[in-house]
């Protein structure tokens, strides 16, 4: 069992949790993820490691309450409880070396996983320019934390309630217009955002990398549920990735595969919701 040591709500539906997982914390590198199981019968879901502390033996997870399992994790699990399984660190770590100037983009929940990447890139001697985007001011989190490991941070909000009004792609464009020479771009966030970044940078000649978060079960290359075409070849996100050259990703296939279980997921959430309502009615 893996004890939860802290939990707090960062923004509506966005939860930060620290979990005791000493072996994972000891070997975590930027870009890696864990597979989490809430309880013995739960799903195995991949969550990116947002931070780790080898000394304390802790990892930090940030997740959005969006599916049956993440909703349960957010609602029913608190500091003092324990998770049934935490496996990792999985995936090939983000390629970190001295590139020069690296623009690291985080959109929404994607802001959390770019923290260790910015940190790693900075330590490797890069000039790190972060672009973090949110829908609005009240959904903001960790932009200050990102600032602590970057040379510059540009915040965008879709509605203009904080920072620059617009999407992260608008922020990226602004940096370019301002004459920033980019040696590499890394983007993590919702698939639509990553695709938008990819499309924008395709003609710029700047190497652009994204972190894919596909459906997976074991996370070690066993099920192949996470497979997607990269440059015409089938790759397993869990072992070959999760980082891939954005310009080689078959985005159409990626989007279709993300929806492979949409119907079952919706039914599961509804069933859970009905269960809870029935329980509440019983209690009354």
């Amino acid at each position, binding site marked *: 069992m893996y004890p939860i040591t802290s939990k707090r709500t960062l923004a509506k539906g966005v939860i930060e949790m620290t979990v005791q997982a000493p072996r994972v914390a000891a070997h975590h590198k930027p870009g890696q993820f864990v597979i989490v199981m809430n309880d013995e019968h739960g799903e195995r879901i991949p969550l990116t490691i947002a931070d780790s502390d080898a000394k304390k033996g802790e990892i930090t997870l940030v997740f959005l309450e969006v599916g049956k399992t993440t909703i349960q994790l957010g609602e029913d699990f608190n500091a003092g409880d324990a998770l049934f399984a935490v496996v990792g660190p999985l995936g090939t770590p983000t390629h970190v070396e001295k590139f020069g100037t690296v623009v690291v983009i985080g959109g929404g929940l994607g802001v959390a996983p770019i923290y260790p990447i910015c940190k790693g890139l900075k330590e490797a001697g890069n000039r790190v320019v972060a672009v973090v985007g949110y829908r609005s001011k009240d959904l903001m989190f960790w932009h200050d934390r990102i600032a602590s490991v970057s040379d510059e941070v540009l915040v965008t909000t879709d509605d203009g309630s904080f920072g620059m009004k617009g999407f992260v792609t608008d922020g990226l464009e602004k940096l370019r217009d301002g004459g920033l020479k980019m040696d590499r771009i890394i983007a993590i966030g919702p698939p639509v955002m990553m695709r938008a970044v990819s499309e924008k940078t395709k003609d710029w000649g700047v190497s652009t990398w994204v972190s894919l978060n596909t459906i997976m*079960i074991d996370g070690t290359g066993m099920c*192949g549920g996470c497979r997607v075409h990269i440059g015409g070849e089938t790759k397993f996100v869990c*072992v070959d990735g999760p980082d891939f050259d954005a310009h080689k990703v078959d985005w159409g296939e990626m989007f279709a595969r993300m*929806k492979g279980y949409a119907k079952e997921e919706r039914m599961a959430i509804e069933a859970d919701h009905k269960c809870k309502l029935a329980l509440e009615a019983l209690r009354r």
Partner: protein
Amino acid sequence: MAETIDIVKLGGVKEGERKKPRSKEKRLEIACQNPKERIHNYNEVALGYSPEEAVTESMRCLECPKPRCMVACPVHIDIPTFIGLISRGKFHEAAEDIRKYNALPAVCGRVCPQENLCEAACIINDTNAHNPIAIGRLERFSADYHLLHSEGERAAQNKPSTGYKVCVIGSGPSGLSCAADLAKMGHKVDLFEALHKPGGVMMYGIPEFRLPKAIVQKEVNYVRSLGVNIECNVVVGRTLPVKDVLEGYEAVYVASGAGYPNMMGIPGENLNGVYSANEFLTRVNLMQAWNEGTAGTPVRKPRRCVVVGAGFTAFDVVRIALRLGAEEARIVYRRSREEMPGRGEEIEHAEEEGAIITVLTNPVNYLGDENGFVRAAVVQKMELGEPDSSGRRRPIPVKGSEYEIPCDTVVVSIGQTPNVLIPSNMPGLATKWGSIIKANRETYMTTVPKVFAGGDAITGAATVILATRAGREAARSMDAYLRDPARAWYSPA
């Protein structure tokens, strides 16, 4: 649970009396769930012998002085002895005797291809054709009886501690067998499993109706009771770096299996609804997706399912598809019936349950609907040419024979290869075809000092019993190595 065994009432041999074998009688068939009923549940298909049936069948055994069955058994279980114990009502002792040779008797009694091994060698075949002793069913009976009445814990003590620390990677049949033997030899064993439950392919691959998961966990508990420390959720090469393993242990056994699915690489294979057999089986078996009430993991319920391939795995898949409510579940195989690698009994069971088998047919691509879900498999007919390197006749496509099989689910079940995670993280470890670990077939030693490997990791996907044998033989070799690491006889692979 206390129980009394009245061997006279059961038809066996009384203490002090001589056995009069009834080898001319027919082999006692095992009761099976009715096909019409069983496709609506996940309970075991073959029901197992009652004590009376087991004694009756055991009484046919001649208890030969030179048993051919024992030679044919990959782990050389002392078959006449354990069957003799059943004839005499000593069911626990029978199970304990098997455990000397095999740590997983309840598993092997169920999934071992006995018809090609011990039972094929049985001398009774010579005089009473097609009626060998039902060795597998008797093995299962004694093992189940023991597990039911004793928690399945060890009877014998381990040898005194040697002080050596060894590590086993992977808790499938090979890893468990190796760990059990090493512990009995007095070594301190840490066994690491990547998934959240120990058992490897016995948990994620073989379905409940062929091998109940509760049985697997009891066998695992037996291995634990020998003092083996099993830690789940540890992916060696990630959670625990290979370097730490090499530094922390005096010997290492890699039994990481063959868990990487092969795909055909044809157009449409990444459509939704197209699964690798591993994914489909893992969802249903390990994650218990069949148990909708409690499981958090979904599986798409197939209506029309195409299963590509005709091995053990393909038959497991097609039978699961039927249990999930498929109206049509079809095996598509590129060669003919004679070449199908699946086990006779499984093929028979699948057909009884309504599976369709389409031979000499191979998919060429899959067609999807507007949402990216598979809607048909485009297949082509094949004919058999000259034998290939495997000795089987090579399938050759028939030009212009393509047609569509409408389906909403496809499961690609054309084999598995070992995972590259350990080989790619262990400098100096020689492999062939990228991921199969090279190991000496007698000593199981790899090209890395103190690292041994066995089971599917060195052969590619094979059977539980062959993996078990590798585990046992490797344990013996590792024991010799630990006691005298400077000895030169174990030339690496």
